[in-house]
């Protein structure tokens, strides 16, 4: 009996299925020869990838295919990698069911090229410079550029960034080479340096720094000009003049007004620019920070239990006579309470939560996040004076943060302020009666759309609260479900294509504000709603 079953299963599994297709150039629909077609099982079936090459007519045939779900990827030099079911060139695809689907048509989009040269300020080509192709992205709602590809210039200063998917790009050049690479797992390298080098390893102290310069010639990412690449296009002569820029000093003194207290001999200095933080150790009271580029910073000093910070702006020269006043830090006790818990939703497990304090504005202040005891009590140690946003980590899934109170002041929206030893405890209230929103994402012709980013956006006044934004991807049947919503007024938007976090950016939102579906969420409510995807046409 078992043997028979086994035989039947074997027969069923090894059904001699054939799967075929044709690969065409997007636009002209000419066949693409010698493209590599990879078929990889995604469930059970045959998980080993099988690879074949298209014929002169752009055709391919896989024989002896086992029934199951497969991912199909087509690559060819000079074209953007294509996945079956993708919504845009290079986007994510969907699995193919064999034998339900027996034949497919794949369109390959020609990739684009950016080329140019990098020169120094004297007009000499810079060899071995790093050149990056970047795309816009968002970090905490702030626009930033993210690397897509990088290359290096040759001795003539020439570079080529190639096989790029069509779209908007920025180009950055850094004369400092990235060196010999790092632990990338597959590359292995052993270097024997010539002995003569040992006499040359002394570096000349430099008062300048290599910084990336973005096309057409700015060190400010936001001032860079994007290039629009069309399929198959080569954008030439993207030349950049790069070279070291003057690195400034910040000099000053650390002082304290705490009566009878002396400064420790060394201070830890933190220079935060919003996107990055630099740590340095310095003697006290006088400090001298080198290598500072123009920009706005928060400069903070920590000495044992004392700390302080100042906001500064560095222009193209040294900044002298900065005073950092430091004062004592304080321990804050508090308690987390959960309300509205039910058998259905008992609320979060206190033992798996941490209380996180983030300085406002963010300046890299680090306070050990405590885990509450079983009764919800906790203690934050050595909190410097300042304003802090309070959050819970990991983010709540089916509950919401309702209230954060220090003394009589509510800090849920704008944060709590510590000034001197706090007389009161920090009270954190979590409610298990969060709202839920579910529904479907529809396209132009009311068809359900999968893989669409669906985002819940709070009312304008509360957009500074990143924790109120929620986002999910629609399922294969176009459905979505958002849980843990704080009661309030929201807008719901769905994008076919959107940079992660772009919705946190007010500039970006202005364009789409009117497309949002207004939703009001109340405690414990569960709404069903339909939303039309932006970008389906």
């Amino acid at each position, binding site marked *: 009996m078992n043997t028979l079953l086994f035989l039947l299963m074997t027969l069923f599994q090894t059904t001699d299925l054939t799967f075929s297709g044709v690969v065409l150039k997007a636009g002209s629909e000419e066949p693409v020869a010698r493209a590599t077609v990879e078929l990889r099982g995604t469930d059970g079936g045959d998980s080993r990838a099988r690879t074949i090459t298209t014929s002169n007519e752009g055709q391919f045939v896989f024989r002896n295919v086992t029934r199951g779900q497969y991912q199909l990827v087509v690559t060819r*030099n000079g074209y953007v990698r294509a996945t079956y079911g993708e919504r845009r060139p290079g986007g994510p695809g969907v699995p193919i069911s064999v034998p339900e689907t027996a034949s497919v048509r794949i369109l390959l989009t020609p990739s684009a090229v950016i080329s140019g040269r990098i020169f120094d300020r004297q007009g*000499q080509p810079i*060899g071995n410079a790093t050149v990056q192709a970047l795309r816009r992205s968002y970090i905490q709602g702030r626009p930033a550029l993210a690397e897509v590809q990088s290359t290096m210039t040759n001795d003539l200063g020439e570079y080529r960034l190639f096989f790029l998917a069509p779209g908007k790009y920025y180009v950055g050049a850094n004369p400092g080479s990235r060196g010999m690479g790092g632990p990338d797992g597959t590359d292995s390298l052993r270097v024997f*340096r*010539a*002995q003569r080098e*040992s006499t*040359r390893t*002394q570096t000349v102290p430099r008062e*300048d720094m290599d910084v990336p310069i973005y096309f057409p010639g700015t060190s400010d990412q936001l001032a860079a000009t994007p290039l629009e690449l069309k399929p198959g296009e080569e954008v030439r002569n993207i030349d950049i003049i790069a070279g070291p820029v003057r690195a400034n000093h910040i000099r000053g003194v650390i002082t304290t007004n705490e009566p009878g207290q002396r400064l420790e001999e060394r201070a830890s200095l933190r220079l935060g620019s919003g996107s990055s933080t630099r740590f340095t150790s310095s003697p006290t009271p006088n400090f001298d920070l080198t290598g500072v580029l123009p920009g706005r910073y928060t400069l903070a000093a920590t000495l044992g239990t004392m700390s302080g910070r100042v906001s500064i702006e560095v222009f193209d020269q040294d900044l002298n006579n900065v005073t950092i006043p430091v004062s004592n830090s304080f321990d804050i006790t508090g308690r987390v309470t959960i309300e509205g818990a039910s058998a259905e939703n008992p609320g979060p497990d206190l033992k798996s939560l941490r209380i996180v304090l983030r300085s406002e504005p963010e300046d890299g202040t680090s306070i050990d996040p405590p885990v509450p005891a079983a009764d919800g009590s906790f203690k934050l140690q050595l909190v410097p004076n300042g304003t802090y946003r309070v959050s819970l980590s990991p983010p709540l899934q089916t509950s919401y943060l309702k209230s954060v109170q220090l003394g009589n002041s509510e800090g849920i929206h704008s944060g709590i302020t510590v000034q001197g030893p706090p007389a009161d405890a920090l009270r954190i209230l979590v409610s298990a009666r969060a709202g839920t929103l579910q529904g479907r994402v529809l396209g132009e012709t009311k068809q359900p759309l999968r893989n669409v980013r669906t985002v819940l956006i709070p009312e304008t006044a509360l957009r500074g609260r990143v924790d109120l934004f929620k986002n999910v991807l629609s399922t294969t049947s176009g459905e979505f479900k958002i849980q843990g919503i704080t009661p309030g007024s929201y807008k719901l938007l769905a994008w076919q294509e959107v940079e992660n976090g772009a919705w946190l950016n007010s500039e970006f939102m202005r364009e789409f504000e009117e497309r949002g579906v207004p939703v009001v969420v109340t405690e414990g409510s569960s709404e069903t709603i339909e939303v039309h995807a932006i970008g389906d046409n």
Partner: protein
Amino acid sequence: MLILRAFILALLAQAGPAQTPTGSIEGIVVRAGTAEPIVGANVELTRLETASVTPDASGRPLQNAPSPTIFRAIAGDGGKFLLRNLPEGRYRLVATRAGGSMMPAEYGQRDSRSRGTPFALADGQNLSGIRLSMVPTGSIAGRVWDADQDPVPNARVLALEPVYENGRRRLNTVQAVRTNDQGDYRLFWLPPGRYYVGVMREDNRAFSFVVHVTPPDQFGRREDASSPAMKERVLDDGRTIEETAVLVYYGGGTNEQMAQAVDVLPGTTVAAVDVALQTDVVQSRRVKGLITGSDGQPAAGALVRLIPMQTAPHAILPRGVADKQGAFTVAGVIPGSYLLVASVGSTDGWNFNEGLFDVGNGSSKTSRIEVADRDIENLSIALQPAMTLTGRLRVEGSTPANWSVTQARISLVRDPNLLGLPNAQGLGASRALQRPNGTPADDGTFVYAGLGQGDYRVHVGAIPSTAYVKAIQFGTVDALRNGLRLEKAPESPLEIVLDLNGGSLEGVTVSERSEPLSNATVVLVPDVPARSATHLYRTGASDGSGTFEIRGIAPGRYKVFAWESVPKDIWQDSEYLREFEAQGTSLNFTDGGRQQARVTAISTGRP
């Protein structure tokens, strides 16, 4: 912020003594073979401290060696430089230029790739008229095609040069770049000389190739490796085979012997060095088996690497990881001899400084396998815990005042030292002792932990220049001559005897016209029966007046040779040496014996 000064500025790197010294050096920096000044060249003057200790196995100078005093200037108008306020002493003088368009130039240099000579500056001496000639670098450019006449993008292109190791010539990577979308590449900032070009396809699905371009003032040698670039192919009979890309040479297919040389002249580009990839894929095999740990249980997560025994400019290192049952598959194995290294629970990973893997306190197994025309199945591998070797360094003769036995460094180097073999060199494995591996205590005892099975050579570094290694005994094995084979936990200690009373040779190198010749390479070669004993070779260079001194010579019969200019270690190649055998002078050293010689330098007419 580059300011070219109208005149010259000397920067004192360190504060001078109380009374300002008055020595000076003045000269110009020009492009070699021309009078064209190189404005903006960096001129660096290094005051030498007396070095009486040899470096360790990796060539690193002693950690506690004082950092030399460096004086700097920038060549101004007319390429002129002036270094002032110099104390008396011995110096080296080098000019470099930012970027890589020029080779560094050193005072007393014979050609752009060799070292110059130190020179003396007396108290208050004003040395003028120095001319430092900088040689421009060159480049090689070309295109890589496939069998369909399509350009091959993202292929790895290597500039290779011959080096000599234990008497064997091999090609080593100088630079690695990759082709662009048009299949074009450009190897640049190359020191003038003879090169070979190698090309290898990369697996563009797992693409992670790093470009290595080294400015010419930092040149060294590098060994390069990658994972196999594999592809499946369906044969006409329906069978699927795996193929792996191998290195192809310009002009010579996959055969290193047939590779065509490319001569790069100063300041020139050799263009159209095109390579067609037609025979670069070979059918590769799989190696499968089961790994058990030293506890007899399946060694889940064990890493298996196959390291080719045949050295190549670019090593292809296939690897695999054992699953929960201890089963592993290594794909992409090209037929040949391999060392299979399995390891688990170690500090296994990337050691960037050495580019090597450590076994650490995990376990490992090294075995030799031959892969021919079929897959290898059912290998059974039992891991063994990492081994610890103890030993003692004993010193004969009187110890110099500035040296103690604790400064010596004992290294165990794999033999052959193949890229990818686990190596415990950088390991502070004798953690309980708070000492790095191979660091002797006051009584000379040392520990070397984290060793896997295999063959090793013992190197004793950071010893006085008068010293030589007299004996290395491991049980009944003469490890100085035969090396060390570790198969199981060692039962006997490693006994090393260092004799501080080595022989010495003083002399002068002269030209064929019997005039003193500066900056010649002097090599003391052991007599024929001991030619393969690389530890007996001694080298030196004559100074500005042609005199030289070699110390730390082991007793025995030698021949001394001198060359005007010669590639490093080529004298270990018996083929090369045969041509000059008659020009060597025979010498016999007893323990502590002192000899003198006048050696006529061989002029080979080429660098």
